[in-house]
């Protein structure tokens, strides 16, 4: 039982604060081996986590690392460092706090390993790297506590699994290590507690007072939102008015490209010159730090931002949160709204701005769900084995290990508590020999067993393994710089850079720049004023809407009229009903129409992204077999759209529940979804090296596509561990076929086909969805043949 020492009581008093009940309880139960705190944002959650550390360090000197703090975001580590500085300086405590992330300098990192601070703030990736060093036992000697902040954002993710595996290593080095998890409000706290605790230890859960309900409204303007599009440009005058009326506003966007465009348009209309900044993950570190510092000083009236500001950053002055575009997910909406008004017990204020008319419907449904405290959840899953393979390699980097001891250590991780010895041995064999059916060569060994302990065959390979640690699968990006300047403006995706030619303009960091050329791996640009930019399409992160929201929307569609919606949106729904139909529960609505020279088919299933992706695979396979030449498809939570070369006249046979599995296996094996999944799993497991920059720099043919490895394995070693993992992961992303068969069985004969000559109101937003999945069939071959013939003819080479 720990109580607040007088020094701390005085400090709270001088601040005019009183300790929150959950902060006091965290202190009182500081000795629990693991403890999970669920508190709303702004509830003093972080201080609640650190209070026991500060008290312990103020009472007894400690040599080396006392508390590890892990957050999913680099920016959060920097923010916490600032915030901890206040009580430490005010009370004159001699506590050293440092952060260690991908942004930390090499010298600083070296020094931290030799002389660790009392409190180290870090990310799961940096921690995994630390644990892989030979001197890990010395670095982590004497660690008392680990605080995992925003643990809800790490739960059910590979980053979280990687973190908990690293934690199991540190726990073995320090059996008395205490674990603390800090989480926002979630639907299933027990699942998070299960992942946090050392299995099978119990993990008590503390619930802070959730505070008053937030004040959320939807922006309704005179100006009508468009039918489709994600820019919400129409809302700019109204949003500027809101910014003027509040002290500090955060303006959230779902994608970086949208944030850039909105920021640009906001400044064009910003006649009063209000100080407004931008913050997202593609900007350079300097730019992000500047904006964060300006925000802390209170210099900014608004920040246009994305998910990089999403998590728990404690900026006290924010009194309004604006969400541009539908929030897609009620949990995220509630957490974002938590950004506003960090005074405990004052309601947070938020305004939703739908970007198009379908989003008006989504926003209204999300508002109802938030008011009903209807949070969406994910199904729990077993720990993924690609992460396990990576962990085994990382452990080997730190020194020789005993397989049985490691197996038992891994089983203390909640997500891996059901791991069988056979499954572990499979992963170990993969790490050691590649795990191939064919054992051809002696040199096919990464690990070898010496005197009962496993170790790296070649100690030099540890550097390569460390370089590939991590579970975030980054899209290759290129740095953007002004010519003859050392300063990085930000990064763009390589695929976007490839579409640029000299003279093209695009937005980055709120300014329009002109593409000049590629120098090594840097995109060189020059200043460009006053031209309309070509839109940057980098990082269109796709968010899945929860099934709950889909169901609420479907219920709304069944109404005769929509008095709760703005006039423009209810008129839009009436128009959809006039030209086609509104989707209904228990039936499948299918619309077909030509657009941009391709035949389109839209299926409104309202069954969620995963079910639609599965259905997309089934339908495209049947269309391919029927000679309908599908070219690709895209899915949302509400609908799926397939485009191809041939119009679909008879829809019903495609939805026939019988013989659904015929030919499906082959179709799936060659599918783009499987290959994408394989690439991620094989990279995480260490089969493919992600840092192939060396090869790319030489400009040569050093690297080859992971699709080749997938095809080779599928042909020669179909039961290989990587393929088994790929199938499992892909099936997790897909809904199992049994459920789709059931769905088709239920709706048999109730497929409504509407043939149209143009796109419908409800289908329009689908044309802007990211994440299109190509279908590699005869359709694509025909296109290529036509294209080849036309190009040769145009070049006057028709006869060659």
């Amino acid at each position: 039982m720990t109580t607040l020492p007088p020094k701390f009581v005085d400090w709270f008093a001088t601040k005019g604060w009183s300790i929150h009940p959950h902060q006091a309880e965290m202190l009182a139960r500081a000795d629990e081996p693991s403890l999970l705190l669920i508190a709303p944002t702004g509830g003093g959650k972080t201080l609640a986590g650190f209070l026991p550390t500060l008290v312990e360090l103020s009472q007894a000197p400690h040599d080396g690392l006392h508390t590890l703090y892990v957050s999913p975001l680099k920016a959060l580590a920097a923010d916490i460092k600032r915030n901890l500085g206040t009580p430490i300086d005010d009370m004159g405590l001699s506590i050293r706090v440092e952060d260690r992330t991908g942004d930390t300098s090499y010298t600083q990192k070296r020094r931290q390993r030799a002389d660790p601070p009392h409190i180290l703030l870090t990310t799961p990736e940096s921690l995994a790297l630390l644990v892989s060093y030979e001197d890990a036992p010395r670095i982590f000697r004497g660690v008392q506590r680990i605080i995992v902040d925003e643990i809800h954002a790490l739960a059910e993710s590979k980053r979280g699994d990687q973190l908990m595996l690293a934690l199991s290593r540190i726990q073995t080095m320090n059996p008395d290590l205490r674990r603390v998890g800090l989480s926002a409000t979630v639907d299933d706290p027990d699942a998070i507690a299960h992942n946090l605790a050392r299995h099978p230890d119990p993990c008590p859960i503390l619930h802070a007072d959730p505070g008053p309900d937030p004040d959320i409204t939807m922006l309704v303007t005179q100006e009508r939102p468009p039918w489709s599009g994600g820019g919400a440009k129409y809302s700019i005058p109204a949003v500027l008015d809101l910014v003027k009326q509040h002290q500090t506003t955060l303006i959230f966007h779902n994608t970086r490209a949208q944030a850039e465009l909105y920021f640009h348009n906001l400044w064009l209309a910003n006649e009063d010159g209000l100080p407004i900044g931008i913050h997202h993950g593609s900007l350079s570190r300097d730019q992000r730090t500047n904006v964060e510092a300006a925000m802390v000083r209170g210099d900014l009236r608004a920040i246009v931002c994305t998910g990089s500001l999403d998590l728990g950053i404690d900026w006290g002055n924010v009194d309004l949160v604006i969400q541009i575009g539908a929030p897609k997910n009620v949990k995220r909406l509630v957490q974002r709204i938590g950004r506003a008004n960090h005074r405990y017990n004052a309601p947070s204020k938020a305004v939703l701005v739908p970007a198009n008319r379908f989003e008006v419907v989504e926003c209204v449904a999300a508002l109802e769900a938030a008011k009903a405290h209807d949070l969406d959840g994910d199904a729990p899953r077993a720990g993924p084995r690609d992460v396990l393979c990576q962990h085994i390699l990382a452990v080997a980097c730190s020194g020789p290990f005993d397989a049985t001891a490691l197996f038992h250590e891994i089983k203390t991780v909640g997500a891996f508590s059901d791991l069988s010895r056979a499954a572990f041995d499979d992963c170990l064999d993969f790490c050691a020999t590649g795990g191939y059916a064919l054992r051809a060569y002696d040199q096919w060994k990464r690990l070898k067993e010496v005197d009962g302990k496993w170790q790296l065959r070649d100690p030099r390979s540890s550097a390569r393994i460390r370089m590939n640690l991590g579970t975030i699968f980054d899209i290759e990006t290129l740095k953007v710089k002004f010519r003859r300047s050392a300063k990085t403006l930000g990064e763009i995706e390589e695929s976007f850079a490839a579409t640029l030619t000299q003279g093209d303009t695009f937005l980055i960091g709120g300014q329009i720049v002109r593409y000049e050329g590629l120098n090594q791996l840097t995109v060189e640009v020059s200043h460009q004023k006053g031209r309309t930019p070509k839109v940057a399409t980098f990082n269109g992160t796709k968010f899945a809407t929860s099934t709950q929201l889909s169901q609420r929307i479907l219920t709304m569609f069944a109404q005769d009229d929509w008095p709760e919606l703005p006039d423009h949106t209810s008129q839009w729904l009436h128009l959809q009903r006039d030209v086609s139909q509104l989707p209904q529960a228990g039936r499948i609505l299918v619309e077909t129409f030509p657009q941009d020279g391709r035949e389109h088919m839209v299926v409104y299933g309202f069954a969620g992204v995963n079910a639609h992706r599965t259905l997309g695979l089934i339908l495209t396979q049947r269309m391919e077999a029927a000679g309908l030449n599908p070219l690709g498809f895209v899915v949302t939570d509400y609908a799926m759209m397939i485009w191809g070369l041939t119009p679909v006249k008879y829809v019903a046979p495609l939805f026939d529940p019988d013989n659904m599995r015929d030919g499906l296996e082959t179709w799936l094996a060659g599918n783009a979804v499987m290959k994408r999944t394989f690439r991620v799993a094989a990279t995480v497991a260490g089969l493919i090296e992600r840092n192939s920059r060396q090869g790319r720099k030489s400009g040569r043919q050093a690297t080859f596509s992971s699709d080749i490895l997938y095809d080779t394995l599928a042909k020669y070693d179909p039961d290989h561990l990587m393929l088994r993992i790929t199938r499992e992961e892909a099936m997790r992303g897909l809904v199992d076929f049994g459920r789709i068969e059931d769905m088709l069985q239920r709706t048999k004969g109730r497929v409504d086909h509407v043939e149209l000559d143009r796109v419908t109101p409800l289908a329009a937003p689908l044309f802007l969805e990211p994440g299109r999945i190509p279908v590699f069939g005869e359709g694509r071959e025909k296109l290529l043949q036509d294209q080849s013939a036309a190009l040769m003819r145009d070049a006057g080479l028709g006869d060659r």
Partner: protein
Amino acid sequence: MTDHAFTFCDTHLIARADCTLWWPDARLLCVSDLHLGKSERIARRGGTLLPPYETCETLWRLEETVMATNPETIVCLGDSFDDLGAARAVDDDTRTTLIRLQAGRDWIWIEGNHDPGPIDLGGTHLGQLQRGPLSFRHIGQPNASGEVSGHYHPKAALKGIASRPCFLVDDARIILPAFGAYTGGLAARDEVLVKIMAPSAIAILTGKRALPVPLSACLKR
């Protein structure tokens, strides 16, 4: 018709969809950059343990082509092995397959930058080969004519079509795509290749069918 026939230096040639070049009048089959033993070399040097099936897969494909064309001469245009160590480390299966492929034919190993030395696997070992108007070598030379080479692993993409290995052909030279299973590629419009090829060059895409397109119509990536 899945192949593309064309005339080069008054010679009738066929670019096959399977990345090989067939000269029917000479009954000569040319194939480049097999990179046999690539996974073995990477494993030996402490890299990742790639599936050890590429040698088997590459030779299986080559055997298919040999059965289809029944050549008198087979020219391997260099980089047949990923390094000389990989050539020395071939297993018995590979050796047997090579002997079977070589039986009754002239087999010519052209030296490449990856395999610059002699290989103890049958066949004739040459720096380059002249046959009629055509000269076969691994890396193309400036100002050459009638030249057939490899080395660059050219590949090309069109709008809406992901990149595929391709032949590059102008009036003076042909660059072959890489045949090996584990090979990447260099974009046909990369400045290295643009400097070598004439502006009027064509790229012949491989895959299900061999399809010619003007090089200038290919994407830069």
